[in-house]
């Protein structure tokens, strides 16, 4: 009997633990909501752009709390991989963050979870955002996202490899690219002419390079158009690159980050890169001779793929609007924002930030491209499904599947939503 008493105790403890754990997941207590006008706590959920991200936000928060004694900011940093799961779980548990840094927000806007941005920033801050970002931050004419940072893409060229292969001019059109990449691939020894990352990590970005480059695209806020004659030309050119042996092997399953490492190691002739790529090369292989060039397109027209990430403010119980406004205005002031965005090596989205940074030589080629930037139709409610379809399906192009069939398959997934 004594023995079973002890067992009962153990089981009871375990049961208690289990029940209280379960309680955590399903709507536990929330932090103080500041209804009494004293301490307000703002929950800030951000993804990690680099190893600096956490420290940069902590600096901003320290300065902000020093200036606003009645507000504390709780920072939570997550990886991009986890961000969506984390926020979905929080929303389900009625514990959405007050401010979140994220990519697509159309889903949250559709569920009426977000403050229109004009409700949570002052008129000065609102007017300081560059106009080119406003459209992609709005759903049905209401701006929900505060553009936080932007990136543009460009063709990074390993000058040494091109010279070695006898290519004298950086390609500007597809035909030139194909010829140049094929020559570079012939060097041998594991060298690839063009780095084509069609693996799931960021397949939609690489596809955009070719689809928009052919004059096609992904559609707009109301309609997703993947299965178009222009995009078919882009898809067929991708296959042409692969068949000619101008790319690295297994392009359909190669992710972007690992492939970028290979470029930095000097084994790839050309690849599409981002502003942070400059820093990566400086850190990993500073001796490499490279240049940053406009993306080659079918007919040589300039184009770049722009991506803007946003800050968004969740309504929750609606009691923290004033505190959120204070924080966002504080953050977007030039002396906070410019050091932040510079350290993350991305492009600024505010006019004041842009003029403060135009002396930065690393970023200059990207800043110049930004006016021609095309954006994903990320405010389209079906963009998430489209994005997912690209990630899981478009790589089949490089595995020899019929281009038309791949486009139809993605379009069907996108339409299903």
């Amino acid at each position, binding site marked *: 009997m004594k023995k079973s008493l002890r067992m*009962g105790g153990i089981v009871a403890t375990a049961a208690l633990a289990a029940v209280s754990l379960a309680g955590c997941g399903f709507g536990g207590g929330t932090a103080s909501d500041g209804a009494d006008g004293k301490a307000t706590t703002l929950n800030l959920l951000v993804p990690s752009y680099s190893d600096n991200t956490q420290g940069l936000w902590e600096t901003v928060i320290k300065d902000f709390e020093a200036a606003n004694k009645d507000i504390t900011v709780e920072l939570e940093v997550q990886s991009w991989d986890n961000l969506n799961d984390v926020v979905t779980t929080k929303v*389900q548990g009625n514990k959405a963050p007050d401010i979140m840094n994220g990519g697509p927000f159309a889903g949250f806007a559709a*569920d009426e979870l977000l403050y229109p941005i004009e409700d949570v920033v002052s008129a000065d801050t609102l007017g300081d955002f560059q106009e080119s970002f406003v459209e992609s931050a709005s759903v049905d004419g209401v701006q929900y996202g505060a553009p936080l940072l932007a990136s543009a893409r460009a063709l990074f060229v390993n000058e040494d490899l091109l010279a070695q292969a006898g290519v004298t001019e950086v390609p500007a059109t597809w035909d030139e690219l194909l010829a140049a990449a094929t020559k570079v691939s012939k060097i041998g020894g*594991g060298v690839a002419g063009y780095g084509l990352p069609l*693996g799931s990590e960021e397949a939609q970005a690489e596809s955009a390079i070719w689809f928009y480059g052919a004059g096609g695209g992904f559609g707009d806020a109301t309609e997703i158009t993947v299965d178009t004659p222009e995009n078919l030309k882009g898809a067929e050119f991708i296959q042409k690159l692969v068949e000619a042996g101008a790319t690295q092997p*297994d392009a359909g*399953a190669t992710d972007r980050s*690992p492939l970028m490492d*290979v470029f930095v190691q000097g084994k790839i002739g050309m690849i599409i890169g981002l502003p942070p790529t400059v820093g990566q090369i400086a850190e990993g292989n500073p001796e490499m001779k490279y240049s940053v060039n406009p993306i080659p397109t079918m007919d040589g027209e300039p184009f770049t793929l722009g991506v803007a990430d946003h800050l968004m403010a969740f309504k929750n119980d609606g009691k923290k609007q004033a505190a959120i406004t204070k924080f966002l205005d504080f953050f977007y002031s030039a002396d906070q924002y410019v050091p932040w965005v510079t350290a993350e090596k991305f492009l600024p989205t505010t006019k004041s930030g842009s003029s403060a940074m135009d002396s930065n030589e690393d970023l200059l080629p990207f800043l110049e491209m930004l006016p021609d930037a095309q954006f994903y139709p990320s405010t389209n409610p079906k963009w998430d499904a489209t994005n997912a379809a690209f990630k899981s399906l478009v790589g089949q192009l490089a595995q020899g599947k019929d281009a038309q069939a791949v486009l139809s398959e993605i379009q069907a997934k996108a339409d299903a939503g």
Partner: protein
Amino acid sequence: MTPDDMTQSIDEPPVPTGAANGRPRAGVVRARAAAGTRLTDLFSALPWIGPALILIFGVVLFPAVVMIYNSTRDISLSGIDKGSVGFENYETLFAFAPLGGIMVRTVIWVFAVVTIAVLASLALAQFLNKAFPGRQIVRMAVLIPWAASVVMTTLVVYYGLEGYIGIINKFLVDINLIDAPYGWTKNATSAFVWSIGIAVFVSLPFTTYTILAGLATVPADVLEAAKMDGAGRIRTYVAIVLPQLRGALSVAVLINIINVFNSLPILKIMTGSIPGYDADTVMTMIFKYIQNEHKIDVASALSVIAFLIVVVIVAIYVKLVKPMKEL
């Protein structure tokens, strides 16, 4: 009370055959008198079994019910419940063309991993059951795949197979087995086969130790008797050892089936970057629905199906093999 006595008193038929094996018959008397007091018995037992019941409800039934509930809801991308949709999520799922292939692959995955793991473990356990110098160390070494994190083990192989820097790839080129590095993890079939290999590797310690425990229960005198009767080694193994291992084997197989079916990390790492659904099993597909498409509702529906499949497999297995039955 020994466990043996417990089964006796519960399973005992009312016919008093007890004298035959000479065991005390206390249970029979109590069972006859108990009819009226059964309810009181239950109540007095409640404080003792209550915590266990709470545990079962809290960690087993509650999540299962939430899962089934979610599978009939329309949950938005941001996680808001938009109301009931009946069986629409299941219809979406069954209209999904690659599902058939995914099911077939799941069966191949479970069958291949469990079969190979059990056969290899039988051999390994037989070897470890022999007395030889350093046996203790070898036995400990077998535990290593179990002690290491599955994700870590898989990543080691994954990077070994990498095209540019992979050491396994380089080795295969150096011994002239292949001409140039091959994208093992970038093609569905090869990635799937390698995954099976890793899954076998991480299943070995548990399976081997279960069988080893079974081998320890084979009485030496029976083996000796077989020897005296002139039975050869193979005959002894098939006719004497294997039947004695039935209990250990059936537990090892059952637990492996459930484990391998539910295993995500190996396939997720090894086949994650492959486009299309040619290397997916039910588990990786559930993950893709959540991670890529943010469809918690459809993912729940697939989880329910997976749950049912496991229940059916286990039921068939229990029916056929009767692992709980005493010899």
